[in-house]
């Protein structure tokens, strides 16, 4: 319990620092947002008026706290390019990216654990090396190229879906999910390869431990040893890795959204970077960073729950 309170406090401090960094980073931009909005021809009076209207004439620290106060109430400011609240721009993008992340995570989980157990229990050296080589190849494919391969193979050759013909979840949930299966699969594949490699190593290591030998000498069968003894212990490092990969899945979706033209947070982020729309970039970076910090926090907690040795320290 004391640990939990300590960790939660550390989490709050980390989130605070992340928000400060996300704010400060966009204070050192070489380009002045006012010149960006008005162009270089603007009169000094107009520039000053806009500066006051945007609140840019106040000291940075004051702006930080008013921005933070807004963020805590869900108000991320106003977009420079679209003159609408950033919150409204994110409102229909976040669920989509969330859905994509969730689907990818589900795929990773469903594919990697059975495959990892299989790889860990293979006794043929040839098959084992083949598995490892396949793993290595899968990990070498850049995520965006993998997305393009999926588009080409499943979309254009097998005609299972039409790349670019995204169905909004507002129109049809099933249609949207049917489309998202393919980008989710592209995101999941490299994660599956990594998790399989990790799980394979962990199972191998556990199977060599003394407690397995003792159990075997008392007549326990191979399946019992694998599933009852080795697997629960081997899954501990995997749990942490899976939680952390939730963070990477979210960033991978930025790239994959571009390949499959899914109008999610990633596409908005890239468009806003090109437009110099810093309030939007700032908001998305903050949300992604907070997500990563939270996921790491959850991984920490899960780890302590799963491994009694960690709880004791």
């Amino acid at each position, binding site marked *: 319990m004391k640990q939990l309170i300590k960790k939660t406090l550390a989490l709050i401090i980390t989130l605070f620092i992340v928000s400060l960094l996300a704010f400060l980073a966009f204070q050192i931009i070489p380009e002045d947002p006012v010149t960006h909005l008005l162009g270089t021809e603007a009169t000094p009076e107009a520039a000053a008026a806009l500066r006051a209207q945007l609140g840019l004439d106040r000291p940075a620290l004051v702006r930080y706290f008013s921005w933070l106060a807004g963020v805590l109430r869900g108000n991320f400011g106003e977009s420079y390019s679209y003159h609408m609240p950033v919150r409204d721009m994110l409102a229909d993008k976040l669920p989509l990216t969330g859905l994509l992340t969730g689907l990818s995570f589900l795929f990773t989980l469903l594919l990697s654990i059975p495959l990892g157990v299989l790889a860990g229990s293979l006794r043929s050296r040839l098959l084992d090396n083949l598995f490892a080589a396949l793993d*290595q190849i899968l990990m070498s*494919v*850049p995520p965006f*190229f993998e997305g393009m391969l999926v588009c080409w193979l499943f979309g254009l050759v097998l005609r299972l879906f039409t790349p670019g013909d995204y169905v909004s979840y507002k129109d049809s949930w099933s249609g949207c999910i049917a489309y998202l299966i393919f980008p989710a699969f592209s995101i999941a594949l490299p994660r599956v390869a990594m998790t399989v490699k990790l799980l394979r190593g962990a199972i*191998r290591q556990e199977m060599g431990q003394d407690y397995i030998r003792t159990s075997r000498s008392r007549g326990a069968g191979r399946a019992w040893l694998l599933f009852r003894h080795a697997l629960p212990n081997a899954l501990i490092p995997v749990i942490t890795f899976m939680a952390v990969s939730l963070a990477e899945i979210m960033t991978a979706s*930025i790239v994959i959204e571009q390949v499959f033209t899914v109008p999610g947070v990633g596409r908005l982020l*890239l468009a806003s970077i090109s437009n110099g729309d810093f309030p939007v970039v700032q908001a998305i970076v903050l949300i992604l960073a907070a997500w*990563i910090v939270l996921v790491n926090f959850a991984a920490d907690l899960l780890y302590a729950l799963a491994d009694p040795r960690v709880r004791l320290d």
Partner: protein
Amino acid sequence: MKKKTTGINSFLISGAVLSALMLGLILLGLVWTPYSPTAMDGAAKFQPPSPAHLLGTDNFGRDIFSRVLQGADATFLIALCVVAVSCTLGVLLGSLCGYYGGLADLILTRICDSITAFPAVLLALVIVSLTGRGKANVIFALSLLFIPSFARLTRGEFARCRELNYVKSARLMGVSTGRILFRHILPNTLPVLLPAVTIGFNNAILSEASMSFLGIGVQPTEASLGLMLSDSQTYLQSAPWYALCTGGAVVLLILGFSLLSEGLQRRKDG
């Protein structure tokens, strides 16, 4: 499982062969390409692979093989710069932190831990959105982001070696600190550092390609495999070889080094 005792394994061999092959092609691309990578030929648009054009031609009738060679050169040089800068700075920082310890070590380690918690592409996006795009900024952003992983690794090794007898006796004999750090300890960290360098190299290639693909890396008119892939996506239907050949080149480039690093790691673990 019987452990191999020899230092050579199939991963190391296949990785070395593939990497040597790709390096050979990259060196070749620096001095010679079958066609000019920028020569357009309106009559030869979208030609599928043939003896005349090994990997076919693109939407301007440019020879894809020549462009892949040129793009691989650019990608390789960027990755080389990134790894050279980040490895040098990371090793320097890590060795000092690990050897001396203390408050500076504590703070720097915390900073490195927090940076590595975030995916490189996300941080690179933020940095590039602040500094602007282009080759130099990509190198700057990635070098900065790759320092922590090298620093962390080196720090651990130096902290471990600091208390070992050979270092203690060197200190007693009055060997200068610089010499202890870089002549005595550094060579002993190579088994750990070498796989990290190959992995870092891969990550650099991957990140550069991703950034150029997203349009925030190397800018058009300059060659880059990521940029070519981004172009080729439009013609996935009509000219699939454009994307497949370009992407295949990226995969082979990365696979060679990743096999090499896997082989090195397996050799270290026995």
